[in-house]
């Protein structure tokens, strides 16, 4: 398990636990009593139909959304007790990618790296590695606005991982990726697992997910639905679970 880099060493945790987390928007209930525990070195797939609460759960875990009820603990403390520094240990790939189209790929990475307080020399090395990993070394100085969805997706994932987060939250990481990129993304996620990250990835691509997840969490209408174990493919079991819950 690699130690976190410089500066972030005062904040670390091996486990993230949600207890009875719920979240609602007015009358709409996005999450209802979700309980779960995720440990370092595991990848958890987050499944469920549209509007099941996957993004909301990721939002709550990323500290961006306050839960309306319940608690989330990072190690032995909750987000409030950790303070701002907790966010330096979390990496989020959002549905909307978090990239400035007017800036180049390199500029985007450097801007966020600095915001995360990375030291210049370390940042420079990390940016080069990230660009290579995203397969964008040749286009590092082109504006992100000119990139295809897949290229942006790859860059956004590397942006989220630039600061070496412990908790990795990916919302639909395979959107717009071609087969080769999907393979690379899976390899990247496995690598994160080796490094001891806590990975949660929301996805609809169950066939892809089946190749790398250690466990799955299925949501339906904001509640956890258990996917039955069995020899069948994940998609079939998932379908059955969702239908039974509905």
């Amino acid at each position, binding site marked *: 398990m690699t130690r976190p880099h410089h500066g972030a060493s005062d904040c670390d945790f091996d486990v993230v636990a949600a207890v009875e987390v719920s979240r609602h928007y007015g009358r709409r209930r996005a999450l209802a009593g979700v309980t779960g525990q995720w440990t370092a070195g595991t990848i958890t797939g987050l499944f469920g139909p549209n509007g099941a609460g996957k993004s909301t759960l990721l*939002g709550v875990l*990323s*500290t*961006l*959304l*306050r839960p309306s009820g319940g608690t989330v603990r990072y190690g032995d403390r909750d987000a409030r007790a950790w303070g*701002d*520094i*907790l*966010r*330096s240990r*979390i990496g*989020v790939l*959002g*549905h*909307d*990618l*978090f*990239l*400035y*189209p*007017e*800036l180049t790929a390199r*500029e985007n990475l450097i*801007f*966020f790296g*600095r*915001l*995360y*307080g990375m030291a210049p020399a370390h940042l420079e090395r990390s940016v080069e590695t990230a660009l290579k990993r995203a397969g964008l070394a040749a286009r590092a100085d082109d*504006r992100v606005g000119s990139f295809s969805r897949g290229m942006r997706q790859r860059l956004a994932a590397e942006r989220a991982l630039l600061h070496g987060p412990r908790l990795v939250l990916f919302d639909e990481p395979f959107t717009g990726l071609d087969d080769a990129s999907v393979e690379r993304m899976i390899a990247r996620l496995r690598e994160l697992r080796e490094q001891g990250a806590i990975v949660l990835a929301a996805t609809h691509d169950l066939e892809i997910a089946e190749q790398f997840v250690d466990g799955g969490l299925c949501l339906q209408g904001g509640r956890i639905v258990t996917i039955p174990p069995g020899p069948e493919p994940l998609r079939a079991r998932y379908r059955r679970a969702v239908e039974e819950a509905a």
Partner: protein
Amino acid sequence: MGVLQAAWLIARKDLTVELRSRELIYTAVFFALSCLLVFAFAFVGERTVVENAPAGILWVTTIFAASLALGRTFERERQADTLRALLLAPIERPSIYLGKLLSLLILLFGIQVVVVPLVGLLFGAPIFRAPLLLGGLLLLGTVGFAAVGTLFAAMLQRASSRDVLLPVVLYPVTLPAILGGMQGTLWVLAAEPNYELARTWLAMLVFFDAVFLTLALWTFAPVTSE
């Protein structure tokens, strides 16, 4: 990382983006020009400008252009949800506010550099009569408007119908700043200038800016957490 350092990073990022596209400066300046054109029909009669109109023209134009710029700078942060990315960064929240405010102010002063001389030229306002006082009024009035505007625009990013709600919410709250800038400017540019009064308005603006900047810094973190 320090608050000011992070704020400067964000402001510099905004300015880089603006320098690349130049969208805001062009649209806002030309919008300001069309405002001036409209005002000409309202306040110019018999070849002379209605008394005391230039101060009002100057400020209303500034405020309109500023609202436009304000909406757009935050719309940019919405495009790829980057405001969320900023909120996710391990920096203190007020630095996001300060960074956005700083870049907005630089943009607004850029607009004023065009608008103020034009008001002098087109409406015969004696803008060089008391340049320091006028500059101070413009600076503090704009800061007051932008200080509240940045907070409200940032928090409205997650509200629906934000485009119409922003001015509805912003204008009444920033009225003392607008009034102070406008009245101060009026007494500088009037046929019989009254610098004493202009300075009184300047003092009010200092006070207003200090109070509302403090309040905005204080409330930014709680209102941007969802």
